[in-house]
């Protein structure tokens, strides 16, 4: 854990803040009605995205769900294009077709975020299979919440991954909440990692709020997968500081619970670690301020970006070689 360079640690610190500020703007603009739809925030869970993605290469394929802002940014997408997508602009990653719940950036290997709980798991297995038959060292990674473990597809995919020994890393962000209800009401199984063993899949449950712990655990899991030891399930215990979606008043949480949040904050924990390593508070404050200013500039620019042209609404339903493309556009 301590073998990471100071440069790397500063990079983590920057990335954590980048996601935090990005989502801060999303939350602020959503409150004023400027972000359409129901964006989901990962505030408090940033360490998982940053810790895992630091071990991935551009060729590795990533799948995520409706809470994907952090994963997309950590995998290296341009914050401007990402923000444009979240507010539905033409410069967005998907030209305004996807929005917050369906962020895709093929250039970074971010292949799909799906708005359907557990909808991404089997797709990631397919991507892993494609890598396996191509004999490449590439792997697939899928982020999902503990709520997804209630879905049958989770079970089907674990079975397949174990059976075919796929190069696939399951990363469960266990934030203890499935939409609006606590995990204890959903399942008697405290740890998601317990599901892996019957299928012969190795698994581990770790502190997901410590970016260094996440990074080290993911590194060793990913090395194993690349070496051909089959799928791995990494369960990161984390804490959703935000509601299920922007605007969720979180009546299901107690005041005491809200108060202890700060102790769990992954950014604060990394800051304390860096201070202990000899960084000065001023230095860290400067990093934070710099990221903050950058993100403000990005958001200001994005808000000025053009909306998509309604005349293009029929684009991309089918590929260019689809024979019925023109007929489809003409008839409608």
């Amino acid at each position, binding site marked *: 854990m301590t073998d990471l360079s100071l440069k790397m640690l500063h990079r983590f610190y920057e990335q954590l803040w980048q996601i935090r500020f990005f989502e801060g703007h999303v939350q602020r603009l959503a409150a004023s009605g400027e972000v*359409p*739809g*129901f964006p989901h925030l990962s505030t408090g869970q940033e360490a998982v995205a940053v810790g895992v993605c630091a071990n991935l290469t551009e060729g590795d394929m990533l799948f995520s769900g409706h809470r994907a802002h952090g994963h997309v940014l950590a995998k290296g997408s341009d914050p401007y294009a990402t923000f444009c*997508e979240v507010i*539905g*602009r033409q410069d*967005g990653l*998907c030209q*305004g*077709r*996807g*929005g*917050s*719940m*369906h962020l895709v950036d093929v250039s970074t290997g971010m292949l799909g975020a*799906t*708005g*359907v*709980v*557990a*909808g991404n798991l089997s797709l990631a297995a397919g991507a892993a299979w494609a890598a396996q038959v191509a004999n490449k060292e590439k792997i697939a990674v899928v982020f999902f919440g503990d*709520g*997804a473990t*209630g*879905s*049958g597809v989770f079970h089907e995919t674990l079975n397949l991954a174990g059976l075919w020994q796929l190069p696939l890393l399951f990363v469960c962000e266990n934030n203890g909440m*499935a*939409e*609006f*209800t606590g995990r204890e*009401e*959903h*399942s008697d199984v405290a740890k998601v990692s317990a599901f892996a063993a019957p299928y012969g899949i190795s698994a581990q449950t770790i502190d997901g709020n410590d970016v260094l712990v996440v990074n080290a655990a993911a590194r060793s899991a990913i090395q194993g997968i690349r070496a051909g030891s089959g799928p791995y399930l990494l369960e990161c215990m984390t804490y959703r500081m935000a509601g299920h*979606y922007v*605007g*969720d*008043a979180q009546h299901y949480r107690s005041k005491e619970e809200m108060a202890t949040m700060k102790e769990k904050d992954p950014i604060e924990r990394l800051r304390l670690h860096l201070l202990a390593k000899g960084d000065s508070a001023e230095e860290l404050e400067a990093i934070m301020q710099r990221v903050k200013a950058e993100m403000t500039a990005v958001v200001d620019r994005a808000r000025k970006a053009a*909306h*998509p*042209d*309604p005349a*293009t*609404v*029929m684009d991309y*339903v089918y590929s260019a070689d689809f024979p019925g493309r023109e007929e*489809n556009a003409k*008839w*409608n």
Partner: protein
Amino acid sequence: MKITFAEGLAQAIYEAMAADSRVVLIGSSFMGLNMTARKLMEPAVRDYSDRMLVTPISELALAGAGIGAAMCGQRPVVDLGTGSFIFQAFAQVVNEAANIHYMSGGQSKAPVTFYCLAGMRGMGAAQHSHRTQAMLGQVPGLQILTPGGADDAYQLMKWSLLKSQNPTVFICHSLLFTETSELDPNEPMLPVGRARIRRQGSDVSIIASSITVPRAMAAAELLEKQGIFAEVVDLRTVVPLDRETILKSVAKTGRAVIADECHKSFGVAAEIAATLAEDGLSFLKAPVRRVVVPDVPIPFSQSLEEELTVSTEKIVAAALQVLGR
């Protein structure tokens, strides 16, 4: 008494739970993310929380559990949340519930209600905006309720929970919650399977259901300012489909505009247009027009979604077109 759509739903659920202890709620986020509407469910939560089951995100098995409990004496309503999530439960809804009465030669029945909060709700994008009534309407054995007014939200929901003997999909549109209508508790309910003439007219029939009902009503008002009298037919239910009322209205007006939020091809409007082409050709004075959603997934961006929306303006334009204006 004037009520809102959301009030009608909440009241129907409360009254049904009070009237019959077999009414069980499998999942209970009927109002989706609408916080004001969610408050309306508080009386039911207060009095009947023992009949509101906590649900993991397991749509397939939750739907199946609803069917199983219905076959064995309960009257469950399964809240599938966002209507698009019914795809996870298709195997149970389509292949089990719809077939049980028939396959058993009439021995068994499954009076279960599947509740879907569906439709183009504004920035729901491609995976949260489905209108599934056309797909489900092709499944013999399922009843599809598509209320477009608060009166029907109340009555159809209450009927489904208390009286229906068949599996029912209750399709609720999230943009209807604040629509209001008059409800006279002493008036007998219009039977299920009968369309409601929401407005009489002589020049053109506008056939609507669910969210297109208030939009058709608004269109009719705009048309009246131009001296055109549109008749608005609110289907209320897609299955059963009241072909008789549709044909009767078009026989009177000679012209039809069908406003529906499904995709154009193979949608609810296609079935109605086909019915008119088969049985109403002799009294049609102009081709039927469909005001529907083009064959394209629902995009996220506001400007793109608006382009696709079945709006009042588009209904007005179609009416003018069939009138040759």
